[in-house]
Structures are given as C-alpha cells and as structure tokens.
C-alpha cells in the first residue's frame, strides 16, 4: 500500500479550463439524470450547445461554467459545508432529451 500524500499544484493559469463534462460527477450526486448531455442556450448571446462542451473554470471557490461563444457565466456550482448551491441563471433555457 502506497500512501498518497498530495502536493497541491502551483497556482494554475487563469485561462486554464476544463470541459463541462467534468460536472457530470458532482451533479450525479443531486440529479438522477445526466445534466451534462443537456443542450443549453446562452442567455447572453443565444448560442446553443451541450453543457458537456462548455468551458468549466475550477480555480475559484465555486465551479463556473462559461459559454464558449461569448464567455458569459452559464452555471455556478458552489459546494461547501454540506450544501450545494446551483445557479443556472445564465441559461435562457436548458433542453433535456428524455430517453
């Protein structure tokens, strides 16, 4: 058994972002369906795309999902102290395909 000790990385670059796909795990804790496969329409510019393909920034206290077209904040996920705050107000709407 090798013990992992953890070495926090140096400050990540500000423009270092992930795929919205990475939200699938945290959101699986609260939703029974996969939200990352949903298509979202940006409330700022109207661009439509899968949540999985938007840009996720995690170098902040909350996870921030931004529109790949205009950079507007689409979603904010704040997990701390045993609660989860999900702000979806950046979307005009979200279309979930029912299987």
């Amino acid at each position, binding site marked *: 058994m090798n013990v992992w000790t953890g070495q926090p990385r140096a400050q990540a670059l500000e423009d270092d972002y992930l795929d919205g*796909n990475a939200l699938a*795990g945290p959101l699986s804790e609260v939703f029974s369906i996969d939200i990352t496969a949903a298509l979202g329409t940006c409330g700022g510019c109207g661009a439509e795309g899968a949540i999985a393909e938007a840009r996720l920034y995690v170098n902040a206290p909350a996870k921030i999902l931004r529109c790949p077209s205009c950079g507007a904040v689409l979603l904010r996920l704040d997990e701390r102290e045993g609660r989860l705050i999900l702000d979806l107000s950046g979307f005009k709407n979200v279309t979930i395909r029912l299987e």
Partner: protein
Amino acid sequence: MSGAWKAADVVGLREETTTARTIRLRLPAPVPALAGQHIDIRLTAPDGYQAVRSYSVAGATPDGFEITVEELPDGEVSPYLVRDLAVGDQLEVRGPVGGWFVWRAEDSGPVQLIGGGSGVVPLMAMARAHAAAAHPAPFRLLYSVRSPESVFYREELESLAERETFDVTYVYTRKAPDGEPAGRLDKGTLARHVLDGGSDPAVFICGATGFVEAVSGWLLDLGHAPDRIKTERYGGMGGTS
C-alpha cells in the same frame, strides 16, 4: 458527501507505454456503464487534503472497468496512479458518469473516432463495446500519436482491425516507423482517412484542446454536420473538488 463514492479495488495493472498504464478496478457491485463515460477518482492524504480527477473508462470488465492514465510530469494525481499505486490498493471512485460523449449500441450508423494521444482512451471503450456487441456499423479510428512507442493498445487494435467493420489509421506526429512520414495531422490527411460526411457518420474527437478545435473545424469544412460531431478535451476533466 453523499453515497456516490465507492471503494474500488485495484486488481490489475498493465504498462501501456513508459509513461502510461492501465488500471483494472473492481467495484463492490456492478454498475451500468456507457462507452465513452468517465469516472472521478478522489484521493485523500493522511492530513485530510483531497484531490479529485476524472479519467475516461477504457473498457468494461465483468466486475468493474479499466482506466488508462497518462502521467503528467508535474501532476498532483497522475504520477501516483502511474508510478505508486499497487494491486491490492483501493481507490475512491464516483461513476461512471457522463451522457454526452458516449456511443450506444442502439445507434446503427457509421462512427468515426479521432483521437490525439491519450485522447484515444474513451474511443477505445467505444471500439471495445462495438466489438463486444458484434455491431454491424462501420467504425473507423484515426489515431494521432507522437511515435510508435507512444501507442496505447496496439496489439488489441490490430486484432480489432482484422474485423471488416473496424479500421485503424495511425498518424505519427514526431517519429514514424521506417518508410512512413511523420508530421502533424492536417486537413488533407484527415480528409483521406475519415468516413465521408455524405455517409453522415457520428464523429467523436478526443485530444488536447488545439487538436480537438483544429480537427472539428476541418470536419465542418469537409461537410460534416455540426450536430454529428462530439468533442472531449483530455486534461479537460481534471479539477479539484
């Protein structure tokens, strides 16, 4: 935290290259998985510090699944997984999750997979699911890789390619086998080796950001429909939590 996290046993390890290895995990109970999904792994240090990373599932096994991890030299988690983790250790995992970048056997149409480097991992899960289902749809994999030594799953890919429904093309970006050219993937090479847009294939692209953006742009130029192209950026699923 909820009960989404499970302890998985490390039951097998296999070197893919000098910097990547496949980790076989056994779960306490079987979980449904779709080809292309990922898992989250959570590591906890003795002082309580935690890090969470996502890794694509490379394929299902009867009692769990395999992931393939490429070591990032200054990474916080991958060097531990590639160098230190041993059979008999346990990892906390969540998932498999993700419903976007997945191939389902109910989809009857042709599929073009395009992978750059370790971006081949979720595509391998799709190729394995396609073979396991003896699926009749044509599958093609275009695999852009630094050198012959950097190829993951080579023997298995060659054996998959013996079937009529599966084909693999390697593009070597830095160093090619004797007699073959080396160089980065370009639009012309892409056009020669991928399924024609007219056959309306589902396209899955996974790799570094620049690779994914270049390839998806060229495919649109070549007449592929934007709603048939799905992308995933590797290194695009790290993050802490």
